[in-house]
């Protein structure tokens, strides 16, 4: 048998060879001083490495870890407590309402839910209409202002004061009517979303 390869040598030291292979290696080692030295050297190093001293842990290490765990859990627990108190308060309020109204808790919850949904729907509709109004005003106002300016520039200065006052009243009425029209439109739309 030729000299040991490193792989074979380490597998021999690890007890990883089948008995026949191990016997072959031992026969070779008995005859080869070079390989015997190599095996001896590596065995000594492995023993030394496996007996390296522990790194020194400070006293109270496990207590310190547990303290960190407790600290990490504390905020979560306080949130849970707040949630518990909130839910408890909600439950108590509901109980009081049930007792005071004489209705069932399910009925009250259904009414509350329906009412909240309706309010949300109204708010969404209102916001949509507000934006629609702004867009409309953006389209109308420049034309209106331009027309008014052009009209005013043509009014002759010699017209009687009574006639000018009459024209101003008519203009005011027209503007009020315009505004009233918008409001009506707004409220007519609102009616559509309401329950019968």
């Amino acid at each position: 048998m030729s000299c040991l390869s490193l792989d074979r040598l380490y597998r021999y030291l690890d007890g990883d060879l089948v008995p026949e292979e191990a016997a072959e290696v031992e026969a070779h080692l008995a005859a080869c001083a070079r390989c015997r030295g190599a095996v001896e050297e590596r065995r000594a190093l492995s023993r030394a490495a496996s007996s390296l001293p522990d790194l020194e842990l400070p006293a109270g290490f496990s207590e310190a870890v547990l303290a960190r765990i407790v600290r990490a859990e504390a905020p979560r627990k306080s949130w849970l407590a707040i949630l518990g108190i909130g839910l408890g308060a909600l439950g108590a309020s509901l109980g009081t309402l049930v007792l005071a109204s004489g209705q069932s808790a399910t009925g009250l919850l259904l009414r509350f839910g329906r009412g909240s949904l309706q309010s949300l729907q109204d708010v969404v509709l209102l916001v949509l209409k507000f934006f629609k109004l702004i867009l409309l005003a953006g389209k109308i106002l420049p034309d209106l202002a331009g027309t008014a300016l052009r009209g005013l520039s043509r009014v002759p200065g010699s017209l009687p004061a009574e006639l000018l006052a009459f024209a101003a009243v008519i203009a005011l009425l027209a503007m009020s009517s315009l505004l009233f029209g918008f409001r009506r439109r707004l409220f007519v739309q609102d009616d559509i979303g309401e329950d019968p």
Partner: protein
Amino acid sequence: MNDDQELVAATLKGNRTAFEMIIRRYQQPLFNYIGRMVGERELALDFTQDVFLRAYACLPSYRPQFKLSTWLFKIASNLVIDFWRKKKIPTMSLDQPFEDDGESYCLQVPDGELPVGRKYELAEIRAKIDRALARLPAALRELFVWRHINGLSYEEMAEIKGLPVGTVKNKVFQAKEMIRRRLEEEI
């Protein structure tokens, strides 16, 4: 209540003393490993604490078919790899060949010279190994520490690293040879 699985089950039921027993059981092996991987005592203490904090937080996801020790070393290994990445320390894959691979690994015992094991006292050899270990590529150092200092089996190491057992064995042999050569250089 001595079995790891029993301690895990008790911890999951809210028994903190059971988790303290787990900490006491594994604090020294984990600190020995992490200390030799990061090289700074304070940092190693922090990381060892972090391993237990993570383990405590993830304990509900722990699967009892795996050994608790293997699971803890996997958490520790991930922490160490994250640290290397943040510090931009090269973390070569164990699948890649190392620089010293190949032909250079042949039997070397100088004729007429006493081997290292006979030349020095055990304490002296240990000190030299510790110094040589610090200069070993990180991925090889990890396997060497697991094998010789933590006493993990090749199968356990293969499970932690997700590698074939044969690959792990070869890398441990390489690590041993590199240390031996560095010891020779020192001499």
